[in-house]
């Protein structure tokens, strides 16, 4: 398994070197502009989207609704634990993106939160003044290396993605996620498959609960809910790839400049 990971990392690094030859910040912005990403599988995506909506109505929405009434410290603790597990994917991606300092900081964060923070339940690192945590994944790493997103894709259960991001997430299953390795991939005495899948489902519920009102509101007030979700997802991905939440850095102002009403 470790050999596989090394092999994949090497391939990614080599493809990055060749991709970087012609890529810079502006090219990454352009490649990941929501308007530049084609919806090649739109009919199929819309069917999958409807399926996901139905599943949400039957499962995620009611469970998230119940989850929301839990006491705040419990919800914060669960959310912290899930973030802590995600650092196991973030750290290798910090390295792949050349952010060695961040990799160091996140390693420190993981060690402190897992031990002093009781399996990540308490974000001790934040209280110690560590910088705000930013999740990274293999899709973002490929993007920073100049790999384009490909077509927009809606995955069953998992939701919106792109061909690049969906493909890259497979790296988690072949050695790129230490949490997967110790739960599902390898038969350790401490964890079982259940631990991994439970953490993934809880992560989905936590996300749904955090965005409960926003999602309900968006659905109620959209004239094309599918298009709204697609736009928001692709904008969010673009921000994450650039590690910024400043719209001014990503939004093309030329369209606004044409509109004269005063």
């Amino acid at each position: 398994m470790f050999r596989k990971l090394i092999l994949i990392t090497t391939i990614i690094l080599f493809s990055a070197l060749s991709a970087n030859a012609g890529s810079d910040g502006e090219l990454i912005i352009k490649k990941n502009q929501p308007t530049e990403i084609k919806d090649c599988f739109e009919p199929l995506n819309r069917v999958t989207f409807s399926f996901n909506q139905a599943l949400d109505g039957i499962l995620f929405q009611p469970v998230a609704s119940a989850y929301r009434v839990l006491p705040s410290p419990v919800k914060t603790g669960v959310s912290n634990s899930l973030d802590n597990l995600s650092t196991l994917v973030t750290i290798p991606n910090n390295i792949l993106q050349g952010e060695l300092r961040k990799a160091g900081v996140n390693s420190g964060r993981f060690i402190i939160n897992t031990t002093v923070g009781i399996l990540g339940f308490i974000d001790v690192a934040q209280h110690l003044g560590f910088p705000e945590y930013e999740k990274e994944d293999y899709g973002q790493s490929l993007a920073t290396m100049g790999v384009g997103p490909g077509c927009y894709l809606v995955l069953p259960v998992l939701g919106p993605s792109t061909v690049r991001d969906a493909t890259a997430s497979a790296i988690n299953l072949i050695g790129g996620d230490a949490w997967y390795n110790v739960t599902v991939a390898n038969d350790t005495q401490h964890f079982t498959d259940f631990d991994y899948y439970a953490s993934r489902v809880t992560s989905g519920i936590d996300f749904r609960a955090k965005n409960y009102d926003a999602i309900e509101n968006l659905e109620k007030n959209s004239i094309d809910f599918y298009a709204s979700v697609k736009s928001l997802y692709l904008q969010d991905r673009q921000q994450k790839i650039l590690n910024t939440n400043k719209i001014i850095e990503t939004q093309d102002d030329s369209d606004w400049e044409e509109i004269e009403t005063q």
Partner: protein
Amino acid sequence: MRFKKFLLVLVCYTLTFSNSYSIEPDVFVQSTVNRASNILSKDISKEEKINELKLIAKETVDIRGVGFYSLGSARKNLDKNQKIKYSELFESYFLKSFSSRLAEYTNPEIEVYSKKVLSENYTIVNSLLIGTSNRPEVKIDWRIYTKDPNNPLVRDLIIEGLSLARTQKEEFSSILNSNNGDINALFKTLEEFSNK
């Protein structure tokens, strides 16, 4: 001499007058937010809240500008009558959508903390929606159209880096694309939304 004095006073008065009416974008946002917040915390029905919020939106949002932005390149193909019809339909769609979204919140606390001038016409005002036990803290940036500094107008809300105007534009584009660019299909959708 007297006439000169009169002119001087007139010039000073005009300058003072015009300056006193120029509104800083961050002050404008904070005051708009406070007005909306007052309405949302009032003990009145949801319908009444929606009606009052619509009045604020009409005064403070550049609805016509947002409408034409949302239409994207399709706006170039509209004739004069279609533009008038679109502006009317968009306004009722926007007011309904905007006020219903806002009416869901009870007593939201928003703090304006900084601003960045992008150009003569645009300033981004940064604010924070204070978190509650059910909702995390949310960053909200406001794109303010400042071409007329005496009458700044909101053109976009950017929530955690996600632009609502851009989302709306892509929604409209999706409807146009799935109807071979037929503007009447968009008119019909907007009408249906406003009447539901």
